[in-house]
């Protein structure tokens, strides 16, 4: 590059202007500047960096909008220092500041340095020049001056795939007809650019080009169909629905998945049956994609059709319809599943499906229904309801509402020990203070079955209250080592299952207190082993807090 050519009359004028500029308060004060450069040249490297930042801040202040009069003064100060400073690193830092604040007035000095024999200094100067007077990008010149035929030739015959693609994209922008012809040739000859051209045609602004590419969907060539569907996105129209439904018969999994996804965007009630069928596919990717699609189709006729089907017809069809309604979270589905789950006159399979649907579409009104099923049913529905209570309450995350439902159920099952135990077994679904108090009182009854159930449910508790109750129960066990051991093992399990929503400090407090209660090596190891997968927070905690040395060692060894 010929740097001297940049020294225009404007530059010279700007340089002269700098020389006659009066030095006022708006330049960097000499004392500050001296401090910065003393530190920049010192041996304290932290201080050097601070000095770099101080200088950068001064430059930043001078380039602030409204500080225009300050800018040339600071620029001049930097130019003076640039000449004087002995250290290469200092000079380079000044050059970087000049790249931020410099004007054409800096160019003569920079150009001189750019010719320096010191390559690092020369490069630093050149970089500053490039920032002050950016070099235009070569981007705009790509294939500039190429005519349509030249672009078509390049797109068809160049050795580089990237060049062929870029030429095609350019051609597509200026002559869609010619681009269509080039694309068709590529498709006919099965050129390695077919996929690129199809994609470019699909996303081009030209409708005729889009149409020509879409027509290839009927070609039967799987690889082309995949590329077209991949590029379809928001460009899909419901006119394609019939063609897409036909494509669902493909044996190619990828194409089938893409077709299902595309139907989610363009499908109507016509897609309901084929997509619904795929929700039962053994291929989990496909069944998930079909469920997503079913949930995405905006045609409201689907909901009314499904609601009708869920209320009448064979049990199998009703279950399918109910599942589909749940995927779609259709208006009215929550009320429907609550109603069906509660209706003991209905077929058990249908109620089971309704209970399962509650996991995704149930609401707080579902809780007493589920509790009632646990209390009143001894069939398989009890287990279904227990499972759904545990899962659904993770979603509803309202322990008070859950406890209200459980409280009523527990009262109702006062004289039915089987029902009561069945409810107690999933009481971790309502992890409230009241539930803990209830379990504590029940423990005191001394009933072995009740105590066994409590020891089963507490290790799954969703907060530390379960752990603290286990600790109390272990203390109360006194000489009964078996019970105490079971309680402490339960604490180990709750620690193992805890996540970041459990305050970390309590974890160590609880573990420490549990270890204090026993000398039994196997029981102690159940606590220590619960720290076998520590997180970085655990490691940080044990390093910065007073922690039982055995626990600390376990955390740090992992």
């Amino acid at each position: 590059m010929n740097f001297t050519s940049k020294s225009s009359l404007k530059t010279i004028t700007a340089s002269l202007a700098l020389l006659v500029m009066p030095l006022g308060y708006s330049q960097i004060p000499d004392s500050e500047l001296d401090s910065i450069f003393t530190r920049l040249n010192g041996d304290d490297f932290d201080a050097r960096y601070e000095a770099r930042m101080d200088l950068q801040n001064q430059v930043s202040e001078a380039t602030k909008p409204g500080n225009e009069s300050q800018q040339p003064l600071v620029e001049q100060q930097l130019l003076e220092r640039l000449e004087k400073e002995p250290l290469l690193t200092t000079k380079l830092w000044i050059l970087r500041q000049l790249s931020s604040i410099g004007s054409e007035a800096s160019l003569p000095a920079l150009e001189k340095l750019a010719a320096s024999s010191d390559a690092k200094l020369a490069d630093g100067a050149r970089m500053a020049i490039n920032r002050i007077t950016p070099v235009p990008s070569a981007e705009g010149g790509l294939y500039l001056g190429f005519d349509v035929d030249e672009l078509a030739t390049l797109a068809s015959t160049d050795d580089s795939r990237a060049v062929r693609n870029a030429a095609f994209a350019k051609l597509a922008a200026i002559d869609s007809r010619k681009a269509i012809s080039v694309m068709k040739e590529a498709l006919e000859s099965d050129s390695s650019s077919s996929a690129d051209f199809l994609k470019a045609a699909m996303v081009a602004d030209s409708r005729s080009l889009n149409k020509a590419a879409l027509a290839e969907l009927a070609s039967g060539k799987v690889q082309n169909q995949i590329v077209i569907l991949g590029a379809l996105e928001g460009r899909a129209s419901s006119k394609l629905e019939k063609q897409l439904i036909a494509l669902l018969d493909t044996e190619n999994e990828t194409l089938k998945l893409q077709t299902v996804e595309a139907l989610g965007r363009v499908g109507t009630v016509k897609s309901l049956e084929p997509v619904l069928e795929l929700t039962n596919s053994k291929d989990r990717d496909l069944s998930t994609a079909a469920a997503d699609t079913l949930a995405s189709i905006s045609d409201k006729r689907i909901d009314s059709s499904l609601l009708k089907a869920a209320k009448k017809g064979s049990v199998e069809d009703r279950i399918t319809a109910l599942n589909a309604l749940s995927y779609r979270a259709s208006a009215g589905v929550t009320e429907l599943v609550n109603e069906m789950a509660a209706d003991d006159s209905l077929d058990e399979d249908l109620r089971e499906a309704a209970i399962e649907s509650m996991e995704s579409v149930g609401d707080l009104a579902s809780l007493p229904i589920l509790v009632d099923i646990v209390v009143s049913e001894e069939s398989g529905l009890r287990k279904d309801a227990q499972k759904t209570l545990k899962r659904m309450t993770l979603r509803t995350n309202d322990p008070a509402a859950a406890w209200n439902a459980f409280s009523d159920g527990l009262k109702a099952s006062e004289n039915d020990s089987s029902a009561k135990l069945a409810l107690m077994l999933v009481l971790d679904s309502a992890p409230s203070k009241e539930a803990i108090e209830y379990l504590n009182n029940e423990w005191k009854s001394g009933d072995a079955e009740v105590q066994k159930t409590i020891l089963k449910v507490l290790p799954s508790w969703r907060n530390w209250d379960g752990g603290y109750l286990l600790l109390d129960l272990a203390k109360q066990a006194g000489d009964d080592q078996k019970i105490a051991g079971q309680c402490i093992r339960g604490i180990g399990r709750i620690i193992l299952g805890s996540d970041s929503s459990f305050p970390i400090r309590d974890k160590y407090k609880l573990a420490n207190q549990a270890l204090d209660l026993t000398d039994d090596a196997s029981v102690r190891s159940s606590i220590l082993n619960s720290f076998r997968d520590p997180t970085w927070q655990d490691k940080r905690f044990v390093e910065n807090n007073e922690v039982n040395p055995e626990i600390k060692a376990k955390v740090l060894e992992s």
Partner: protein
Amino acid sequence: MSSSSTRRTFLKKGAIAAATTFAAPMFLKAATLGRGQPGPNSRINVALIGNGLIMNGHRGYFRSRENTVVAAVCDVHQGRLQSALDQCRKENNACQGYEHYEEIMERSDIDAVVVGTPDHWHAALSIAAMRAGKDVYVEKPMTLTIEEGKAMVAAEKKYGRILQVGSQQRSERAFHKAAEIVRSGWIGNVKEVYCGLGSFPAPTDFPEQPVPEGFNYDKWLGPAPWEPYHNERVKGNYGGGWRNFWEYGSRKNGDWGAHHYDITQWALGMDHSGPVFFAPADYDQPYQYYEYENGIRVIRDWGDRKGHMIRFVGDEGEVRVSRGGRIDTTPALLAGKPLSPSDTRLYKSRDHRANWIEGIYTRKHAICDATVGHRTATVCQLAGIAERLNRPIKWDPKKEQIVGDPAAARWQDRPRRAGYELPV
């Protein structure tokens, strides 16, 4: 619908497995897509550039998939290069090692490239790879400057490549759900977003050390300004190392910002736009923030995130979300509520790398393509410019230009050392 819907197991089962299950022809051979000679069994030949800390996970992943073969590794550090090569040769004895990435670009049998270098090399390597007809997975943040981002977007389009940026939270269920909740308006109009990015120690200067044997420091620096070598400057370390320096990264704005600001952009529907105002800490508030035109303020490392990485606050509710699948909402029911057909569904991916490989076969754009990566990186970089200049920045997201501050506008790009110009 089950809230634990499966991730797309595309890669696990593999395209080949899918094709051979049926009598149908191989659904897309590498050769069909014009990558020269197909890899062994038509698998995708991947090259890994920059085999430091972050590449460990990628290397393990691409070595273990049925439809990818690590055909080349590249590093300017001979020790790392040899170690990566030794690992990759366990599956593919033909894997080659290179100090110079340019040699990988010349290999027509390489289909795709993973860029795991420090940030200052991301754009140059990605554009060079796309220009050579290769698809690209580039670590986050996609770029070091805004102008590099524009060049990446142009290259992706011009060369028709599939590019994935490693902001992988988009492929995590909880973040996806959080974004859909916000986009569907379930928490009303969003007012504020709180993001936890954390902080690096202040950078420092170092005395010059001799460059270790087998380490091409000049190439490591690449486009970045020359500085004397010191181990701490080049070290790969999540707590600092090169990440500490503005010359090679965007500090926490780009480190965690490329994740949390990315999710914020997604959730607010701003993937093709961006904020309009960036304020450094202590400008008019004790915290760093940026704002969108509609007044939504995104606040960094300040306020109560209630134990989460990101907290969206709307006038009708909240979403709080973190890694590890953690999502909490107010009202609580929102977290598990299924979307109805009228709600906003966002691009779904459950495995970020698999999503890229799927795109290589299908040519469908990846979940975090160049435009997404560029707009997110722009947010990270503008926050960084405001921080370095210690003044607020106004941004025009349509023109993609800093407004009313010509000196700040210079920071939209950086000068590059001779021989390391940005490819086009």
